[in-house]
C-alpha cells in the first residue's frame, strides 16, 4: 500500500488529497454531533411521553417512534431532501431548496436527528420502565408532583441505566452519517469515494477512512465508559462494573 497520494495536489480546490479527508472528517463530525443533539433532546422528550400515564401524551409519541423507526434511513433522507420541498407551499419549498444555508447539510442533520430520536426514545422509555413501580408511588405519596417525580426520582437513575445502550446509539449515528452522502454531503465516506475516483487508490483511501471511523467510535466508547463510571451510584445497578 502506498499512501503518498494523500500528499499529492488535489484535482480541484487547491490543497492536497489529505485536505479532502480532513474536510470529510469535519462534515462527518458536524452532521453526527448536531444530529445527536437533536436526537438526544427530542428522543428524551418522546421517551418520557411514552411512559406518561395519559393516553393523549403517549399515543402521539408512540406513533412518532413507530413511524421514524420503521422507515429505512435512506428513504427518510430522500423524503426530507426531495419530497418535503415539493409538498410544502411553493414559497417555503423554494426557500428550502435555494435560500436555506447549506441545504444538503441541514437536511442531513434534521433527518439523522429525527430518525435517531425514535431510537433514543425507546432507550429512555426502557430505562424509565425498568425502575421499580414502587418508586413512583413513594414519590407521589411524599407529595412530589408527577413532573417532580420524573425529574428527581425516575430520570436520574433511568439515564444511568441506559448509558450502555445509549453508547450504541451514539456510535451508530456516526456510522449512519455516511448515508448523508446520498443527498450530496461530502462527508468522510463521500470524500473517500471521490478520492478513489480521482486517484484509483481505492484500497488505501478506504483503509484510511476505516481507521478514522474506528478512532471516532473508540473515542466515543471510552468517553461513554468514563461517563458511566463518573456518574455511577455506588451499590446500584451497574455499580459493580469496574
Amino acid at each position, binding site marked *: 500500500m502506498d499512501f503518498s497520494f494523500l500528499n499529492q495536489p488535489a*484535482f*480541484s*480546490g487547491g490543497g492536497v488529497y489529505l485536505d479532502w479527508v480532513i474536510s470529510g472528517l469535519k462534515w462527518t463530525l458536524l452532521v453526527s454531533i448536531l444530529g445527536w443533539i437533536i436526537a438526544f433532546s427530542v428522543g428524551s422528550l418522546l421517551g418520557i411521553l411514552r411512559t406518561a400515564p395519559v393516553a393523549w401524551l403517549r399515543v402521539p409519541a408512540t406513533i412518532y417512534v413507530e413511524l421514524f423507526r420503521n422507515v429505512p434511513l435512506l428513504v427518510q433522507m430522500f423524503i426530507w431532501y*426531495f419530497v418535503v*420541498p*415539493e409538498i410544502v407551499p411553493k414559497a417555503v419549498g*423554494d426557500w428550502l*431548496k*435555494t435560500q436555506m444555508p447549506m*441545504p*444538503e447539510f441541514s437536511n442531513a442533520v434534521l433527518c439523522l436527528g429525527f430518525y435517531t430520536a425514535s431510537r433514543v426514545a425507546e432507550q429512555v422509555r426502557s430505562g424509565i420502565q425498568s425502575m421499580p413501580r414502587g418508586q413512583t408511588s413513594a414519590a407521589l405519596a411524599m407529595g412530589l408532583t408527577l413532573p417532580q417525580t420524573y425529574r428527581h426520582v425516575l430520570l436520574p437513575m433511568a439515564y444511568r441505566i441506559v448509558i450502555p445502550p445509549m453508547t450504541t446509539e451514539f456510535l451508530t449515528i456516526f456510522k449512519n452519517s455516511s448515508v448523508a*452522502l*446520498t443527498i*450530496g454531503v*461530502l462527508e468522510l465516506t*463521500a470524500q473517500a*469515494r*471521490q478520492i478513489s*475516483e480521482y486517484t*484509483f487508490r*481505492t484500497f488505501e483511501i478506504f483503509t484510511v477512512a476505516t481507521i478514522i471511523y474506528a478512532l471516532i467510535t473508540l473515542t466515543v466508547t471510552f468517553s461513554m465508559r468514563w461517563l458511566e463510571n463518573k456518574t455511577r451510584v455506588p451499590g446500584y445497578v451497574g455499580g459493580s462494573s469496574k
Partner: protein
Amino acid sequence: MTKKRSLLLALIFASGLVACGEKPAPAPKAAEPAKSAAPAPEAKAEAPAITDTLKKIADTGVIKIGHRDASIPFSYLDGDQKPVGYGVDICLKIADAVKAKLNKPDIKVEFVPVTSQTRIPILTGGNIDVECGSTTNSVKRQEQVSFAPTYFVTGTKIIVKKSSGIKGYDDLKGKTVVFTTGTTNERAMKAYNDEKKLDINFIPSKDHAESFLAVETGRAVAFPMDDILLYSLKASAKNPDDYVVIGDFLSDDPYAPMIRKGDPEFKKLVDGVLGDLYKSGEINKLYAKWFESKIPPKGINLNFPMSAGLKEAIKNPNDTGVGDCGKMKC
C-alpha cells in the same frame, strides 16, 4: 487471538461469497464435460494462449455485461426494466462473437448494473467482462482499463431551465451546479470553475437521473454532462420545452466499450466486432435505430444526426483517449 481468528473467518466467508457469485449456472456446467470431453486435453494445452477474459467466460459459461440505468440511448432500462440501447446492442454483438470464438453457443449473457462510480472497480474486479455504456475513453482511465474503438463522439455541455436566464458558463458564477460523481464532465466543470474563479457551489449526485432531478426541482441551476445524454434527458423530461442545452464543448468525450487492461486476445476480438460493424455499414442501421427513430420506453425520437466526429471515428476506427486536459489534443 480469538478476534484475529474471527476476522480471518469473516474474510474466508466473504471470499467464499465472491466465489459463489462467479460460479456458473449448473446447466451449462453439466453440459460442458459431455460436449468437450474429447478436445479437453487440447484446450488445456492451449490454455496459456487463451487470455483471461475468454478463459473466464469459457470456464464459467457466462459473459457478464455491465449496463447503466439512465444513459439514454446507450444503455438504460426500458419499460420492463430490461437493459436496452445502442451500447447494449453492441455488447450483445460482442457476446455473439465470444460464443462463436469459443464455439459455445450456450454461453449465457448476464447483465450487471453499474454506475459511473462503480463501473471501473467492478470491471477490474472481474464482476463484469465488458461495459458498453456512456463511458469516455480517457488517457487517465487507460491507466486502469482498456478501450475498444470509439463508437460515439460527444462532449460536455450544460442543461439549464429556460427560465433561469443562463446563457453561458460564466453566468454560473456563485450558483449551484449538480454533477454525477465519477464523470469526466465533473472534472471538466471543476477545472473550468477553478480556472475562471466562478465560485460555483457543487453538489454531487449518484446518477444522471438524480442529477437531472436536482435541476428539475430547482436545487441546482445547471448539470454538466455529455450533450447527447442531456438531449435525451431533456426529451424524456415531463416538460421538455422548459430546458435548454447550452455552451461550447468543455471537454471532448469519445465513448467506447470498456474492457480489462492487459488482455490483448479479448481486445482483438472486441476490436474486430466493432471493425466489422463499421466496415459493413451495419453501424448506420444501429445508429438510426437508437438516435433517429422512436425508442423505448416512451417512444421519443432523439433526432440526433451522426456528427462529423463519429463519421470520422467510423471511417478510421481508433481507441485514442481524451487527454488529461479534457481535449483530444492537449
